């Protein structure tokens, strides 16, 4: 079956522009995560949704970052007034479970590589 898809795969933005990154999770998956992966680093947690509810946004680096999942399926990560330090790969992951079990079973998308010039 189809895995997690993300679009666009690559995005180049000029400093100060707003960007929107889309994640299509595996159909029926309850939980959805966003991660930021800087070059040569491991993924870092940004935010977590259970259905349409954003249960944890403690990893969002600033108030320029905003995520939503209004119908409990597709999610969008928006970055306002992009800065060079926002350049990274943004990964989305989904899980068919919630609560404790979500970390046991996460399926990652290919990521969106954002370059801010």
């Amino acid at each position, binding site marked *: 079956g189809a895995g997690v898809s993300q679009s666009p795969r690559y995005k180049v933005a000029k400093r100060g522009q707003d960007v929107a990154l889309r994640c299509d999770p595996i159909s029926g998956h309850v939980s959805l995560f966003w991660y930021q992966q800087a070059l040569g680093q*491991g993924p870092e947690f940004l935010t977590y949704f259970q259905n349409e509810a954003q249960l944890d946004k403690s990893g969002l680096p600033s108030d320029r970052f905003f995520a939503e999942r209004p119908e409990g399926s597709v999610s969008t990560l928006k970055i306002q007034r992009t800065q060079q330090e926002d350049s990274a790969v943004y990964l989305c992951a989904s899980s068919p479970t919630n609560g404790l079990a979500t970390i046991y079973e996460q399926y990652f998308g290919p990521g969106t590589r954002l370059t801010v010039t």
Partner: protein
Amino acid sequence: QQQVKQSPQSLIVQKGGISIINCAYENTAFDYFPWYQQFPGKGPALLIAIRPDVSEKKEGRFTISFNKSAKQFSLHIMDSQPGDSATYFCAAPLTDDKIIFGKGTRLHILP
């Protein structure tokens, strides 16, 4: 800030050899330690994981060893193959729904 310290940063192994990657962790929400494999241009994929009831888990050529007293765990890849060349991340649970990843080990298997 909770951390997972992973070493080495990069590793070159001859085909057929054993690849060993180590991780050390601080306090975690509970004992569950997964390893992820990531190929260029792809997202990480769960490779193998260990839970607290065993000190070792083996799946094919991949083995996790876990030392709870030392707060360390390691990944062993036996009979390493060129197709194993990838970046490997260890991880640990920070909370019930949040994982913290190591910085990764770039593994290259020489043909």
